[in-house]
């Protein structure tokens, strides 16, 4: 179960990075929502990894 959660969190970070990289060449005012989306995905992925690490340390 941990493995699936880690994979999902990592996938979230990767997709966030892909979105930011693909949006980057365009003017920021036109792709701002995409950049926020990418940042939110990276933040959630990192938050999930942090939570998983805390639970594993607890075990």
């Amino acid at each position, binding site marked *: 179960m941990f493995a699936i959660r880690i994979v*999902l969190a990592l*996938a*979230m970070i990767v*997709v966030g990075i*892909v*979105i930011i990289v*693909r*949006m980057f*060449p*365009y*003017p920021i005012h*036109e*792709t*701002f*929502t*995409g950049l*926020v*989306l990418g940042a*939110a*995905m990276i*933040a*959630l992925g990192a*938050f*999930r990894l942090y*939570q998983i690490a805390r639970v594993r340390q607890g075990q």
Partner: protein
Amino acid sequence: MSKDHKPELRRSVTPWGSFSWGYSDVGADIFVGLGLVLGAAAGASNVAFLFAGVVYICIGLAYTELAATYPVAGGGQYFVLRGLGDIFGFIAGWAVLLDFTIDIALFAWSCVEYLTELIPSIAVGVHPWAHFGVVVLLVIGLCVLNIIGVRESTALNGFVSALDIVSESAILTLGFLFAFDPHLLVHTMLTSWPSPFEFMKGISLAIVSFVGLESISQAAEETQRPASIIPRTSVALILTILIFALSYSNLALGMQTWHPIPLDAQGHHQLLWQWLGNPDNNGKAVALIAQQVPYWGAIAALYVPVLGAILLLISANSGVFGSSRIAYAMASGGLLPSIFQRVHPKFRTPTVSLLVFTGLALVEVVFAALPSLDPGAASFYAQHFNGEAGIDFLGDLYAFGAATSYSFVFVALVALRLFDPLSPRKFKIPLNIPVTVRGERAEFPVIAVLGFIGIVAILVFTMITHPIGRVAGPLWIVFGIGLYFVYRKRKGLPILRSHKRDWRSEQVEILRRAGELELMDEYVANLKASDERRAAVKA
């Protein structure tokens, strides 16, 4: 403190349970909101979602702090009652009640819309009476289930939430990796930017996609160690919902479709967002976008409508459950007549509350369905309500109720920070200004003010752009205040002032029942130190 033994709810909700309680409610919103926002805000739908999403983050943080500090079932209504007094607690609770009844009607309606993907004969456009009948049966069915005391279990919520998160993540990941075209997104935004009126309407509808975080605080009284667990689950939920809303809206504007989009009613070509936002499809937009995702779309076409319908049904059920419990809690607090406390002798459920508010939801369903059932009503709606019907009609009122109750919650947060600084807060919204109030050190929450400005802006947008919301919403509030005045006068209770309560003892009891004994000790120590300081000043 009372030594009477009061019945307590069993604390069985785990971190995942707490998350899934919130997700099964707020996660369903995007299934309704996406099509509505695309229909209104067109090429600026993603910006509309971002605006509402930023306000939603502020709302989420406010609820997280309040639910972790005051872990009682009652949510926003309780926080406002405690922070601002009886009359405002009543108005906030009354607005939440409006939202919950619309929640029942809107989500039952949308549940049937998703099912039409598999059973086209119950579509509004095919057999309006069949569609209406199924929605009414669903609402009655949910009411009966709640009267006999069957409610969805935390396990079912958890299972459906997990399935939906995995499914939506797969759809969005494949969509962004293989079909998303940033150039198309920019092009759509530039060529299909809406008028200011449409943009405001889009923002006011986008808040519909973020309503329901209340569920986490509703379940606070059943959550294990709520002060620790609620902040963790809320942050994850806030980010998850924001990501889904932004992802779907960006995909809808910038995705290369996997299959051809059908022509519109006039035989013209249409873009993906136009197809999803038109009145025939705006109730099932997520199922349609899922079909257009590469590779997974063919499978998604089969199960997403069912998954969406289940999630929407759970959300409708949370409206039935929530409205009856809030009415019960308001009656217990002397804000509503005691008839709403009456429970069924056999099933021990608040039957009167369930029947009244489900009945109200049925009335809303009738008003939403009238234009599809009767051509005369359709022309009346076209003349007076911009032709809004179905989920547009219900979404209109939903936005009003949500914006009103959230506005009060922000003010309550500021009031509680200033006038109840001694309650330990395990989670605090960041960005605070230290102040001294009545000799106590407190922190003024800047984000609550920003959130308040944002939600009031959404309320103003709702009043400007929604012909039904600006009439029916305030009428509902005025009707409620009238009812409140009559009731309080009859009972000999203060009308504009608040009934005296011992909040200190109540807070100690709340923390004891929550199992937050360290926080309870901290609170008692804070009270003692404060009393000693005051005594020293007087001496």
